[in-house]
């Protein structure tokens, strides 16, 4: 199956148009959005939920949300894939919070979802923005950076982070908060 053009600007334009068509109620447009983005969004849900069938449930909710909320997407405020990815991440976190169960990394999933460094710039809408964030993350202390990355990529709460790092909750909170303040200062005005 043709996964689409390699030019990110083209990809972005197609997605913006497809989302506008979804807003007009076209099923075929949602199918197009799905074709272009489902692997990425499933990767997000799976990494956060760590369970294939829960991730598929969440992914289903994500596209229903896209169907209902495509009207609220504003291309001036975010790239389409960022908007979609944020929807997916939020939905996955909602699922994780409401299931209330302790999430472990099953061995067979670990390799599939492991972070092998950043993937090709299919998502990076602005290279400079990404460089800036990664540069600022690199400037943090190791435990600050790891905690913040784990919060974003794994969807952990403060208590889950504290458990995994085997530190008191207060310690983890202060690591993260100090890290966030330094990040914000490093990133400067957006």
């Amino acid at each position, binding site marked *: 199956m043709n996964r689409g053009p390699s030019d990110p600007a083209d990809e972005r334009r197609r997605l913006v148009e497809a989302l506008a068509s979804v*807003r*007009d*109620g*076209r*099923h*075929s447009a*949602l*199918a197009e959005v*799905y074709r272009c983005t489902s*692997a*990425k969004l*499933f*990767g*997000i849900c*799976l*990494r956060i939920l760590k369970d294939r069938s829960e991730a598929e449930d969440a*992914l*289903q909710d994500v*596209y*229903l949300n896209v*169907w*209902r909320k495509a*009207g609220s*997407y*504003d291309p001036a405020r975010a*790239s389409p894939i*960022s908007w979609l*990815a944020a929807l997916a*991440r939020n939905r996955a*976190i909602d699922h994780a*919070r409401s299931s209330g169960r302790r999430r472990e990394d099953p061995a067979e999933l670990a390799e599939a*979802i*492991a*972070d*092998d*460094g*950043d*993937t090709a710039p299919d998502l*990076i809408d*602005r290279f400079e*923005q*990404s460089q800036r*964030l*990664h540069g600022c993350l690199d400037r943090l202390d190791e435990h600050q950076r790891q905690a*913040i*990355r784990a*919060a*974003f*990529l794994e*969807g*952990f*709460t*403060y208590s889950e*982070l504290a458990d995994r790092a085997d530190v008191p909750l207060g310690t983890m909170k202060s690591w*993260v908060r100090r890290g*966030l303040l330094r*990040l*914000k200062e490093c*990133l400067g005005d*957006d």
Partner: protein
Amino acid sequence: MTEEPIGEELDLLAAEYALGLLEGEALEDAGRRGARDPAFAALVEGWTVRFAPLFSAFRSLEPDPGLWDRISASLEQPDKRPVEFASVRRRLTLWKSYSAAVSVLAFSLLLAVVLREPEQQSAPAPAVRPVMVATLAPEAGPPRVTAAYDPATNSLVVAPVALSTVPGHDHELWIIPEGGTPQSLGLVSPDGQRRFPLPPELSSRLVATATIALSNEPAGGSRTGQPTGPVVASGTFSAV
């Protein structure tokens, strides 16, 4: 004793909320704050934007091939949220008394609309023979939009007649089955006719007794799934 967070503390709270670090009561509090305080919501969005480049670290994985079929099937049955919005109902019962005697002008405009399909449609356009038309108008004023029901596609073809937009706002179209709750059909723009698919469980009999309404919503439409703004026009169907 909790102090109300301000300044840097508030921004940190926004970051924690955006990242998903919060749980339980702290999460609920932050959620409520986001709903009522646009400044806080803006802070949350600021952090979301800051972290967006990190999305590239997620690895892509194909979901089960059958998943799209399940999604597609569930599009046909939108879940209805039975939220009460008595104020909208009250206004709508007023409009019902204006069950449209469709004006000749509105009807001929509508015929022109339904016979001329938009160019962008990818599938060959089915011939539309409207069996019911509705004129949506305010309590005292000219019609704003007309809506024709097309049974072949179970959709409404809606054409603006006199519709102006206010910056930062959109007009959202609702179908309210008699005794039922409003269901959003989407946003109506003033610059052309659009086809709005109807939920398939609405038979033409239910459509015939439904009220169609246009509400004034924030840009992008209501965030809640129910009308949040004033009803600017409404109408019911008359058989052609």
